[in-house]
């Protein structure tokens, strides 16, 4: 209500006299333009996925539509396995990353002194190291540990990626929670772990939910690590999608169909989590 009042109070200037409701029209146009800008590539992806293989080169002219691409993609064994693998990896990576970084962020938030300071600086510096500097040697490391091309071989590096950034964000969540409840719990006989587990962690759940959604989406859509750290045993959806346009010829229609299928879980997660994400992103 307050904002509406402001708009009316302002609309007595020269501009408003020149074009009544001009501001509202301009605002609506800007909103439509923004929607178009962000929706167009996705719209085009969906359109391409509905075109027959021969028609993709004339997406903007053709009128034939078909769902055969989806049938064809879903009948391929590798796509189904990749769907399952991507889902498992994203879910496990989310659970494990949050588990590992919740404690680390709690430590950064509740303690002062040389150890937390050193840990924080370490997090900050390792966050900056470019991926190329460690993803290539990581290939050798996972082979040495004989976990290359397995779930663990992709999961653990993913957790390592998230540790620095998430610890920082988690610190912010715990900073926003009053520690006096934990002190009270400890006076009543709770151990330090008990105070963390039973008092601090439950209060941080809104933030954790937001981070979980972002982490899941990020892992679901991640490409570089999946490309380098997996092969035939553990196909990952983003790599399989990209290969439709690289190695197996330029099959734009199949790539698009797979991408649209991959979009569905992401869409569900985002739409259900939208509220939490926006609330939890306060840094």
């Amino acid at each position, binding site marked *: 209500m307050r904002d509406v009042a402001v708009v009316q109070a302002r609309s007595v200037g020269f501009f408003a006299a020149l074009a009544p409701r001009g501001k509202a029209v301009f605002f609506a146009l800007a*909103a439509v333009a923004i929607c178009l800008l*962000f929706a167009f590539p996705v719209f085009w992806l969906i359109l391409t996925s509905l075109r027959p293989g021969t028609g993709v080169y004339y997406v903007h002219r053709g009128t034939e539509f078909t769902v055969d691409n989806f049938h064809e993609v879903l009948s391929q064994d590798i796509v189904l396995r990749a769907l399952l693998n991507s889902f498992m990896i994203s879910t496990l990576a989310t659970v494990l990353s949050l588990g590992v970084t919740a404690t680390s962020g709690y430590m950064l938030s509740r303690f002062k002194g040389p150890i937390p300071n050193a840990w924080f600086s370490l997090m*900050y510096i390792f966050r900056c190291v470019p991926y190329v500097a460690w993803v*290539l040697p990581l290939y050798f*490391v996972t082979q040495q540990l004989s976990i290359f091309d397995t779930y663990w071989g992709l999961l653990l590096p993913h957790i390592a990626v998230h540790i620095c950034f998430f610890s920082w964000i988690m610190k912010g969540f715990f900073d926003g929670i009053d520690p006096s409840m934990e002190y009270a719990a400890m006076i009543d006989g709770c151990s330090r772990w008990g105070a963390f587990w039973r008092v601090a962690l439950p209060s941080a759940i809104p933030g954790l939910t937001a981070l979980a959604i972002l982490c899941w989406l990020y892992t679901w859509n991640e490409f570089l690590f999946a490309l380098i750290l997996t092969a035939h045993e553990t196909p990952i959806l983003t790599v399989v999608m990209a290969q439709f346009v690289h190695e197996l010829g330029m099959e734009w229609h199949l790539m698009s169909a797979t991408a649209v299928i*991959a979009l569905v879980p992401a869409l569900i997660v985002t739409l259900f989590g939208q509220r939490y994400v926006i609330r939890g992103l306060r840094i």
Partner: protein
Amino acid sequence: MNEKTRFMLELITPAALVLLLFQVVPILTGANASFRDWTLHDPKRTWVGLANYVHVLRDAEFRDVVLPNTFGFMVASVACSLLLGLLIALMLNKRFPGRWLVQSFILLPLMVAPVIAAIMIRWMFNDQFGVVNAVLEGLGFAPVSWLTQRWTAFGVILLTDVWLWTPWFALILLAGLQSLPSEPFEAARIDAASAWRTFRYITLPMLRPVMVVCIVIRAIDAFRTFDIVWTISGGGPARATEVFSIYAYVESFQFLNLARGSAAAVIGAIIIVIFALLLYRILNRFVEVSK
């Protein structure tokens, strides 16, 4: 070791173990390789000291193309997505019919895999079959071969990055706007401050801590961009759009000189860590990140 210290260490042990094994060890492995001769005709991997570093730093490609591209990309990408993100956040902070619809559309780029977005945008800018050229022709302009010239290819990459990251800026800034106290705005309204002055002297200063954190995080990420550049142009035409991640990758895998690629990666890492430490000092002035 007292009980408190032990608790602190217990809290960070799992994270520290994963970090050590899957980040520190690989980085050291790469750094070790960068001091050796890792070409195919030297199976002994002779220690060559700083020779690889000297070679990379003397390489005209690295100095005159890769570094300007990397920094140019970082500045342009952060500036564009910050401005656009701020505008969208200000817009979404108002109440208007259809707001949830706009907000849902804004979330779309967060759901699409960056590599798919990059493939799709490359497809849209294809010089023969792309929709962008079809539209240009429809409007009576000559079609442009977007990806065969340096600056247009750079522009397409930048556009993709801005498309991918503006929503992120918009959402974080929106969350920041919504958590601002309302009293200063009421005071400004009572004093009949104009919308611009309210924005300039109240919104912007109060939003600055959030903006600075966003800029630092995004600047570091933009510096190490790999996948969208690789998918859209592959560093081409003729290595003209290479950023430093691509340079390290190309040296390692296309010229099969892992040592030189690692040296380039280490140089990049040193540059960005120094840059990040400078940013950190700025950051600390606005928000106390390490209380």
